[in-house]
């Protein structure tokens, strides 16, 4: 979807800024909002670019820097921690050869922490783009990531 198409989905009002930014981020392969897009969105909504930037930097799910096609977010809160007996982050980190908050060289994967994603009854849990994965085991984590490598989104 082009930026114009996303903008036309919503009334031309400032209150839809976050909805627009979420759509752009989700839609783009590398999940970020570029400077040009900030300018276009600001013009369209008749707001200052600085306001768009303040929103962009405030919300954790939005990014102004390029990320991977698949954003792996691992929950770091207590209920997941209590049930994580193999270290989810270390498993992914080793498997992909990247540190936390890094992106793989082929721009396929980014690794991030997330706040609780409300799956504590099936902890540990992680989220890849809009998909949630629960009851993780070491093998399961590796299988999930490898299935994404194969291009099954």
């Amino acid at each position, binding site marked *: 979807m082009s930026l114009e198409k996303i903008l036309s989905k919503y009334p031309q*009002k*400032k*209150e*839809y*800024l*976050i*909805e627009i*930014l*979420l759509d752009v981020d989700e839609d783009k392969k590398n999940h970020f909002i570029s400077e040009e897009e900030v300018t276009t969105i600001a013009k369209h909504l008749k707001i200052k670019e600085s*306001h768009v930037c*303040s*929103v962009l930097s*405030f*919300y*954790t*799910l*939005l990014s102004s820097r390029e990320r991977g096609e698949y954003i792996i977010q691992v929950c*770091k*809160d*207590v*209920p997941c*921690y*209590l*049930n994580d007996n193999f270290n989810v982050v270390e498993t992914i980190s080793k498997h992909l050869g990247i540190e936390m908050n890094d992106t793989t060289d082929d721009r396929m994967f980014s690794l991030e922490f*997330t*706040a*609780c*994603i*409300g*799956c*504590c*009854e*099936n*902890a540990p849990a992680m*989220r890849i783009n*809009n*998909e*949630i994965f629960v009851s993780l085991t070491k093998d399961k984590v590796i299988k999930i990531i490898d299935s994404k490598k194969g291009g099954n989104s």
Partner: protein
Amino acid sequence: MIEYKELTKKFGKIDPLSINDYLQQDGYKMIRKAIKMGPKKILNEISLSRITGRGGAGFPVSIKMKSFANETGVKYIICNADEGEPGNFKDRYLMENDPHQIIEGMLISAFSTGASRGFIYIRSEYQNAINIMKHTIKEARKYLFLGENILKTSFSFDIEIRRGAGAYVCGEEFALIESIEGKPGRTRVKPPFPSQKGVFGLPTLINNVETFSNLPFIMRIGGREYNNIGSDFASGTKLISLSGNVKNKGLYEVSYGETIKDVIYILGGGIPNNRQIKMVQLGGACGVVIPQSLLDIQIDNERFHIFDSKIGAGALIVIDDRHDIFDIILRNMEFFEHESCGKCTPCREGHGQMVNLVKKFVNFQATKKDYLSLKSLANVIHETSLCGLGQTSPSSIISTMEFFPEDYEKRIEESVRRGQTNG
């Protein structure tokens, strides 16, 4: 059986995507009944029920609704579905399993207070719930439960979904309102309260998903009968999100007044691997941490003398004896350091400092002075922060200092023995 299923009784029995399933289970009958009763009688029933807000703060719902009903002009209703408190997943279950119940609750609120527009603010992480709620609103419109002239009356009400973008603080009412307006989610100074001046400067009633879900039930059995369910301190049922080191993790609905111990041992099946409970955190990351010896306390709105709240939004995080108290506190404090919106100084600056001090305890480098600094800092943040985030975030520190003093003493002694302290 200690479960008391009312809000969750249709779970698994209806297809959440089918309005017909909901209608067959007497769905939308309570908004019809409410319209016949009229606003005054509805508000009276809600008063009699003594229902309190289910989002964590436990404020009496009828007080909020009555003050909101007195306002004139265009008014908004917001359903707060920004469930982000670690350990809570009840609102996700309500949205994913019985979404029309929430819409009906919002309709009853709107009709009884004269509101015409509504928002459901859902965090983006809950993609499945967002899809279900979007579909539910469409179906409700198709069946004329939302839109103009609902059920051929002069009552009009419609709902729009807004997504959060990964900010825990947006569960706070004014931060949520700012976010709906397309701004960073930073709270406002109160008063005026949202019921007077909320979203777009207009009167706004904000309630939690579970609170709205209770309203069709209150309409069905009446406020007096509802008040008979529960304990002396709280009426109705409470959804409990049970997680951590417990056999049967999951969502349970119990009447207020059940003990925490029964929920953990009867419903949760106890602790796996023959372990003992070291502590239980109540409500979520912002909740108090209690020892095994206090598990007999009841789930209700009564408060600890050392702290303002007890059960919060209803999370119970069970932590077994393999775990170190300071590891848990550090995770909580790092969470709040990241989630502070930065508007007020105690919360913005204080969480970083608390993280540094707690790290000293984790790393066996703590002194008596660190203990006193941590204690005073925790109390300052609790007393002086602008919104609920900072007011409640230090509760795991304040409560463990009260209930686990020996853990702090031992850690300081051990730090000195290892010679890793700097004086």
